[in-house]
């Protein structure tokens, strides 16, 4: 439903968050995949990324995240929810790593009880919901450092 806008201009991360001097300075060509079953979160995460000029695609569960990679797509960043139907975030992260996907995967969840298990599945980062611009920016800093 919320596919990324192709042809969207690359934005400047430095243009967000007035007063925050730690923003990334380079124009971004970062691409992202949002994996979440909740429509509100889909809209919200899509818009948060869009607002930072990051082209992004939205899928509804772990299985769809695998499928989109099988079709040859690749993303710099994957925002992965944990509790989802069909295939949850833990299993999806494990599978993506087993497929050799080296994208930065950030877990975004409310379930702190299984945080360790989620991290061990192959996450690079974990953020508690609700996601905010500053949390997203802290994730993006890591993308730049690693890439």
């Amino acid at each position: 439903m919320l596919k990324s806008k192709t042809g969207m201009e690359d934005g400047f991360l430095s243009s967000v968050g007035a007063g925050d001097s730690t923003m990334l300075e380079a124009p971004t060509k970062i691409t992202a995949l949002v994996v979440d079953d909740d429509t509100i979160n889909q809209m919200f995460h899509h818009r948060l990324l869009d607002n930072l000029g990051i082209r992004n695609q939205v899928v509804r569960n772990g299985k769809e995240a695998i499928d989109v990679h099988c079709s040859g797509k690749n993303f710099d960043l994957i925002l992965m929810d944990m509790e989802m139907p069909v295939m949850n975030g833990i299993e999806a992260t494990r599978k993506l790593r087993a497929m050799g996907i080296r994208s930065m995967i950030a877990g975004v969840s409310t379930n702190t009880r299984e945080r360790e298990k989620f991290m061990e599945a192959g996450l690079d980062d974990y953020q508690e919901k609700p996601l905010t611009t500053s949390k997203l920016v802290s994730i993006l800093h890591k993308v730049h450092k690693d890439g």
Partner: protein
Amino acid sequence: MDVVVQLQRQLADHTASLFHEGFLNEQFNQLQQLQDESNPDFVVEVVSLFFEDSERLLNELAKALEQQAVDYKKVDAHVHQLKGSSSSIGAQRVQGVCIPFRNFCEEQNIEGCLKCLQQVKHEYSLVKNKLETLFKLEQQLIAAGGSFPTL
């Protein structure tokens, strides 16, 4: 008094009370910040989805808790969803009731669950009313030729 000024004052008071009385938290500001010229209805769209989702979940919860043998796993999954969507829009009083609700699910405490369902329904209808008033005031203000400060 100028209609626009009066509406602006009303809107400011109403918004302030929503935060002071704890109906909304800073997450709602996050949503407002994501609204711009290219997404002028973002907040209304997300909040409408929240209304739809919540009403569906509250119905499902009422049904699930009426059963002879209550499926607490199912109840917990619904409460988890409600907690997630309420936290996404910053409806913190709804979100707040979801925490004891989930604990009662874990304990399989039917009275506790039913009490929480009543509370969460109550909190939901309060915040729904407040948000609808907020949107109405915003519309009236725009119709009167005014604009409201975006955060």
